[in-house]
């Protein structure tokens, strides 16, 4: 169930996060993200500009894909649990692409009463090519 509370005690190394599929990416979403984030780089809005820059056309903000990846974490672990999230942008996300965010648990430790869970994360397009790789640490409640 989405937004169900996850307890540290119930998490095991190797557990998979529920995949989250976003898109297909539409220009209007990139325009909306530009407005909401303040990143108005024309390379995400103006196809001619992006072609002249040698990028072959517009592509999505990396930070939008990172937003998807972070959502895949908080859909599972809950809002406000993320202590650290870091990504590398491995490939461009184009218009009409879908982005599927995946992840798995790679570590679980108790520290100062909190349960810290380390995650390996990645996102793939519809061809299975990785567009984002990353990792995160979430703090989960413990049952005591």
């Amino acid at each position, binding site marked *: 169930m989405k*937004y169900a509370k996850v307890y540290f005690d119930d998490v095991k190394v190797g557990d998979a996060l529920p995949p989250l599929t*976003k898109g297909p990416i539409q220009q209007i*979403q990139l325009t*909306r*993200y530009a*407005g*909401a*984030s*303040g*990143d108005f*780089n*024309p*390379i995400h809005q103006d196809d001619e*500009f992006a072609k*002249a*820059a*040698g990028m072959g056309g517009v592509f999505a*903000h*990396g*930070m*939008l894909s*990172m*937003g*998807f990846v*972070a*959502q895949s*974490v*908080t*859909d599972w672990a*809950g*809002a*406000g649990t*993320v*202590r*650290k*999230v*870091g*990504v*590398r*942008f491995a490939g461009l996300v184009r218009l009409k692409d879908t982005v599927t965010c995946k992840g798995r648990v790679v570590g679980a430790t108790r520290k100062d009463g909190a349960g810290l869970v380390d995650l390996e994360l990645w996102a793939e397009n519809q061809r299975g090519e990785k567009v984002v790789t990353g990792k995160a640490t979430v703090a989960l409640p413990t049952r005591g």
Partner: protein
Amino acid sequence: MPTEINKALKGKEFPPFVVTVERGQMKAFARAIGDLNPNYLDDAVGQASEWGDVIAPPTFMTTFRADGETGALLRELGTDISRVLHGEQEFEMYRPIRPGETFTCRSRITDVYEKTGRTGPMAFVARETAVTDRAGEIVAVIRHITVIRL
């Protein structure tokens, strides 16, 4: 003719800038991602939560920027926006942030280096931003790597 990148900018510190988180902007950011988590969007859910209000999605601090800073930095580096790609991004967060909070952001360039990738020579500019609240407590550290196609 490849661009010559200004490596002397390593260590540069930017003037601190102040941001105040606006409720509407925070929610618009969550909606733009399509992340409809009620802890980001529903004030009643926020008030009943341990934080007493809605909170920002994990990547929201990407909106923390000083006016005109990106353009000025690119000019100083000797490039422009059409050559820039986002390489890496990291947020280390010590607590969630809420609407109405005011933060001070202090950025510096931690590294400038060049590498040749499969698409040709590129420069990497690593930036780190420390975010502190009004009590002077550290709230987050943001790390950002910009890639410049040379």
